[in-house]
């Protein structure tokens, strides 16, 4: 089955050329940039953005407190976003919602007090977006972008979120706040430590760490010796 979401490019830097597009961007702040295509299948009449938002709120309750120039979440909750939306509007809403998720993950994992972002929709093709989100940590920025894409691939297919999605965020936060992302630590000692401290089964921890590795949270050069 073809993916709905396709990452075309991902990079990291301060991108001064876009700083004027959101006055909330802190001068010189580092950002993750993701170029993403969102190609929603034509047979997607049952793609309910309100339902997706409700699932997201369970995963990331602080989404409700985000400030948004477009009042996206209020509009979704109140039903002002209807099925009559054009395909272009719909994919723009999806991209914008993803940006909120990436912002929330930055704050949740690294404890950033504020985080800003922009989502820019291309004129052509209409389904391509540049997203820029401030980051405190490059690896967390990368992780957040990949996690959001994986998450939305699931949500856009009307799937429910397994425990894994909740636990991955908790584990990313645990690893970041305990400074375990840079540590040169073998796989087994790390699994044992996490399992012991979080009370999770080793097999569960192992599966989560593998996911996190795929999401780019570890430095491949020296972390997680498998």
């Amino acid at each position, binding site marked *: 089955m073809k993916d709905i979401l396709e990452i075309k490019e991902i990079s990291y*830097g301060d991108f001064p050329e876009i700083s004027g*597009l959101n006055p909330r961007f802190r001068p010189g702040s580092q950002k993750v940039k993701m*170029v993403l295509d969102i190609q929603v299948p034509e047979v997607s009449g049952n793609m309910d953005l309100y339902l997706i938002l409700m699932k997201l709120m369970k995963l990331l309750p602080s989404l409700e407190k985000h*400030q948004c120039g477009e009042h996206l979440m209020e509009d979704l909750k109140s039903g002002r976003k209807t099925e009559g939306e054009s395909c272009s509007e719909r994919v723009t809403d999806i991209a914008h919602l993803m940006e909120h998720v990436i912002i929330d993950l930055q704050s949740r994992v690294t404890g950033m007090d*504020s985080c800003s972002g922009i989502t*820019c929709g291309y004129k052509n093709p209409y389904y391509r977006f540049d997203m820029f989100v401030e980051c405190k940590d490059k690896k967390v920025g990368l992780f957040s972008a990949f996690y959001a894409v994986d998450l939305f691939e699931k949500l856009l297919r009307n799937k429910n979120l397994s425990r894994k999605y909740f636990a991955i965020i*908790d584990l990313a936060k645990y690893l970041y706040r305990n400074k375990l992302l840079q540590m040169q630590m073998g796989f087994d000692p790390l699994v044992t430590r996490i399992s012991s401290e979080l009370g999770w089964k080793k097999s569960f921890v192992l599966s989560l760490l593998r996911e996190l590795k795929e999401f780019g949270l570890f430095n491949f050069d020296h972390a997680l010796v498998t």
Partner: protein
Amino acid sequence: MNDKFPLKEPKTLKTEMKKLISFEEKDDLLKSQRKATDPMDPNSDKNLNMMELLSKYATVRSCYFVKHAEESSSAKEIGVQKGGFFQVT
């Protein structure tokens, strides 16, 4: 900017993730070489770039999240919760 990873055929997300983990960072040298820009000067590099960008985009949406003071302090106190999950209140 041209697409760096044009995909000719559908590939799985995770395959692409592995490929994309060759993560680019603008280094200090590039930063130091960047010209100082005057926000009011339409000919400055920064503003030309922004004009170029805006001509590429159909929509620009912005948003932000600010933690309230009490949330920031409680977030710092979050610890390990055995057998459960972290929760930011």
